């Protein structure tokens, strides 16, 4: 009869890879991976799940037991830390703490995708007048506004995001200490960039930080310190549920 130590040596690696296989299947099936990864990268996770399964089978059918000491057991267990983290804090997402650490103001290069006009361009490609028709008013993302700020300037716009009230914002938003924000992810949460629009309103006082809200107001680019600062003038703010996909991509 095999001793517990022998069982550990025989089955530790297959179990580690079985846990990872199950974890990846769970992330894919539940779509939870979008809380830290770009949705298109689900394909990579699917591929990773097959690799983990292959590793599990390879570890299972291995003819000889893997040599193992305390160090190698610990190293194998370290591989489970990401899984344990996710299980312990399944609903964790980037919030105001991450915003405060990552926000460096409104730079002209904060969002530069697809040759999109920055805050310094004068007109939209599709709309020479640079204005969005009011009869097509619908909810926009903060990213859409950042990509075409002049198109929305002076227009009524509806966006969804999180509320942030912090003294630190005053230096970036001309004395305003409130903003609605979301994170833009290019690959994964590690590169998430905060996109924020200042709120020129007292109503936000009634909301806690990181409360999801829908903001309906007039978008403006106010010149502060020689830089255009995106601002909502007299917005109407309403609390809403957290969206299924909290980040912008």
């Amino acid at each position, binding site marked *: 009869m095999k001793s517990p130590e022998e069982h550990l040596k025989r089955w530790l690696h297959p179990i580690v890879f079985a846990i990872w296989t199950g974890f990846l299947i769970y992330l894919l099936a539940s779509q939870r991976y979008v809380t830290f990864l770009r949705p298109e990268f689900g394909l990579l996770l699917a591929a990773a799940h097959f690799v983990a399964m292959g590793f599990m089978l390879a570890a299972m059918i291995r*003819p000889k037991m893997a*040599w*193992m000491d305390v160090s190698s057991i610990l*190293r194998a267990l370290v*591989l489970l830390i990401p899984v344990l983290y996710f299980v312990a804090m399944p609903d964790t997402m980037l919030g105001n703490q991450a915003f405060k650490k990552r926000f460096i103001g409104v730079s002209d290069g904060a969002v530069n995708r697809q040759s999109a006009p920055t805050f310094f361009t004068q007109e939209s490609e599709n709309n020479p007048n640079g204005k969005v028709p009011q009869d097509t008013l619908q909810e926009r993302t903060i990213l859409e506004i950042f990509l075409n700020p002049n198109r929305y300037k002076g227009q009524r716009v509806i966006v969804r995001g999180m509320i942030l009230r912090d003294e630190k914002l005053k230096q970036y938003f001309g004395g305003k200490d409130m903003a609605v924000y979301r994170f833009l992810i*290019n690959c994964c949460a*590690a590169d998430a960039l905060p996109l924020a629009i200042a709120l020129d309103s007292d109503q936000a006082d009634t909301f806690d930080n990181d409360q999801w809200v829908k903001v309906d107001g007039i978008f403006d680019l106010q010149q502060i310190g020689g830089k255009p600062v995106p601002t909502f003038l007299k917005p109407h703010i309403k609390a809403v549920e957290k969206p299924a996909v909290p980040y912008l991509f």
Partner: protein
Amino acid sequence: MKTKSSDPVHGIGIDTGGTYTDAVLEATHRKIADAIVAYAFSKQTGKSIKAFSTDDQGVLLFSCNFKLDVPIVNPIVAASTALAYAFEWPIVLLRMGIGYILAVFIGILMGRLFAGSMAVKDNDAVQEKGASSWGCHHHTHGEGCFETTQTFPVLVKQAGNTTACGCGNSHSTWVDWIDKSGAAFTHAMDDFLAVGHYLVIGAFIAALAQTYIDRSIFLSLASAPVVSVMLMMALAILLNLCSEADAFIAASFQGLMPISAQMAFLLTGPMFDLKLLLMYQSVFKRRAIVVLASLILATVLVIAVGLEMINGVLQ
């Protein structure tokens, strides 16, 4: 019995947790990988494949070039950099061009500096233990073709052999394919087990850095020319970003940091950060790591400061 599987060709001498007899199973795909490395190495240096010993320090040169080049000079990184910088092609070309030159330069220097000494850990473990990680998977250790000690396996049939593995045993293609797949997965699994924990620990350190480092602090010192470059290099080391994503972070500093500092960020991160430092420790000896890190940081600093001095070309 404590076992070690050393892979001098790949520059890795690490405890894989496998047995030496398991190494037999790893043979087939390793043959291919090793032959490719040997072929590429021979093309680079002009020597014949068989002229190389797996312990040849030139492999260090090759692996350094490869390791430093690949994260920067590839189409995905070029595309992401172009996207992040709104298709400002000079930025993309600068990153690719300087990244390539730096990698070649550092690789050559490393090859010369460590020509007479070993930079790679446990490089001769195979010889010490009398084992090899390649061979025919139809024999147990010490039998048949596994006894051969050829430096680089040759991917041609030997006289009298009926199979590509050179063992002389006949077996069906289908069984071969399954064996090869199994060997590939086993070897990949061992490699993953050997270095995977470094990735997790590196990611943990990166998460701490992301959580506690206030990026706006870096802006307060941005006005000093050389300081801004050094700060962005430090940020690249601390954030541990992948090279496909770091251009977007660098681009967010446009207008806030000089382009030379952004370029320093784009060049440093893919070649050296906390996560890579841990990974290097599993492969290289401490002296080699210190030299490699110093070379990377010094050359990037010089290049970035040089860019700053010719400022106006890009701005």
